């Protein structure tokens, strides 16, 4: 008899359990459960479209224009007479525009070798978390340029081409790492005897020191013998700080490369860090939004 009563209590409890559980189930938890099937893209792997010299996986968003001015000064080891390099400066001015949220186009003009460069960048895969977990972002970069400094050359000999597969992962809030396999083809290398095709792989990263300041570093390994007669070049290595203030990003850096386009900093870096052939430089990036439609909708 007692046994029956006991089992009755247990069964009653089991039968009523769903009701009890339901009553206690917080509405907020229910919303959270309903939301768990979504995937969220990982944003801001880098603060800007460049790590230092090299391209980052970031592209400009749709209808946003980036005006970018970059300077590299002379070598720090050039002495007090040259004011440690600051007397000489070379620059690149460029515009980048987001055609879609994933595709941007850009143009630029470098004073060094009087190069006009044109490029496109397409974000193929976006790192995401949540229901669809994608561990990396992959962006494709393709560019060409015309070095107009030597008037004697045929038009096609002034051309070079660059292709990169940019592969990056944001490891948590602060640290991002990128690999940049690079294919660089010069129709007419600067030094006679240098190979037309150059393969390289870049590794770059950033570490956020605070919400608005990050430390960046980058190294491009080139698949060739260094500092030979036919190619008196070294690998490019750069370190810098990104400072973000509202619509501007200031990138200040030290690098052994003078050029600001792939042909020059990957292919034609003549300085070395151990001899002190270091250039101080900076990029200033200013973003403008031309997204009028959205603006009206929000007002």
């Amino acid at each position, binding site marked *: 008899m007692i046994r029956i009563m006991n089992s009755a209590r247990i069964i009653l409890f089991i*039968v009523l359990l769903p009701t009890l559980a339901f009553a206690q189930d*917080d509405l907020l938890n229910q919303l959270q459960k309903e*939301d768990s099937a979504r995937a969220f893209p990982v944003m801001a792997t880098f603060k800007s479209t460049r790590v230092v010299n090299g391209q980052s996986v970031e592209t400009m968003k749709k209808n946003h224009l980036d005006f970018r001015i970059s300077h590299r000064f002379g070598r720090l080891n050039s002495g007090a007479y040259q004011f440690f390099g600051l007397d000489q400066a070379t620059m690149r001015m460029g515009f980048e525009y987001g055609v879609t949220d994933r595709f941007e186009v850009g143009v630029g003009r470098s004073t060094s070798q009087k190069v006009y460069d044109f490029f496109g960048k397409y974000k193929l895969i976006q790192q995401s978390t949540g229901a669809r977990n994608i561990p990396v972002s992959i962006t494709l970069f393709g560019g060409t340029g015309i070095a107009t400094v030597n008037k004697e050359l045929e038009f096609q000999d002034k051309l070079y081409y660059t292709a990169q597969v940019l592969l990056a992962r944001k490891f948590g809030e602060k640290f991002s790492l990128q690999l940049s396999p690079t294919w660089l083809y010069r129709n007419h290398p600067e030094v006679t005897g240098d190979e037309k095709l150059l393969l390289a792989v870049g590794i770059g990263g950033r570490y956020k020191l605070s919400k*608005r300041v990050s430390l960046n570093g980058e190294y491009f390994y080139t698949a060739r013998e260094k500092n030979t007669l036919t190619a008196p070049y070294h690998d490019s290595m750069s370190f810098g700080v990104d400072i973000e203030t509202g619509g501007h990003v200031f990138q200040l850096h030290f690098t052994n490369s003078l050029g600001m386009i792939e042909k020059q900093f990957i292919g034609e870096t003549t300085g070395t860090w151990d001899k002190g052939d270091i250039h101080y430089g900076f990029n200033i990036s200013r973003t403008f939004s031309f997204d009028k439609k959205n603006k009206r909708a929000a007002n």
Partner: protein
Amino acid sequence: MRMHILCTVIFAVAGMVCQTELAKAQSTLYSTSAGNTRFSSETPLENINAENKKSQAILNTATGELAIRMNMVDFVFPNKLMQEHFNENYIESDKYPTATFSGKVDKAIDYTKDGEYDASATGKFTVHGVTKTRTINGKIKIDGGKISISSDFQVALTDHKIDVPEIVFVKIAQIIQVKSLYALAPAKK
């Protein structure tokens, strides 16, 4: 033996009661996952607006319990750089991904009757990981089995430990205006 039959009857009745209770509880739930939450920051120098069209809301009309939840990354700004800064620098959406409200509608409303009522809800309001108990005023409108909840209120940045550096102090208001509209339909189960 008679005891045994009695027990079976009790279970059967209890089971039925419990199932109808469950059904009743479900039928009083109204929800949306496409609610609209907007905020604006107005200063003489710059007006900033953002809109979240994926806010979730759920109301239990039997108890007046109300919960609202939204992902900070779903706030869309006309200027994508501002959107990035909002997530990265101000609201820190990696650390604090959602804003929530969990509370109760303060007065009893007959949700079966069409009409529009001034109402308020009191509960826990969480933004940027900081929870405040607040009473938020708004309106509840009932129209042919659909319930819409709207509200218009303010959030002070300092209440939720949202830091604005001095350099952009003049461009970002200290008090943010929030407007929301949630059109609720009977929750599907």
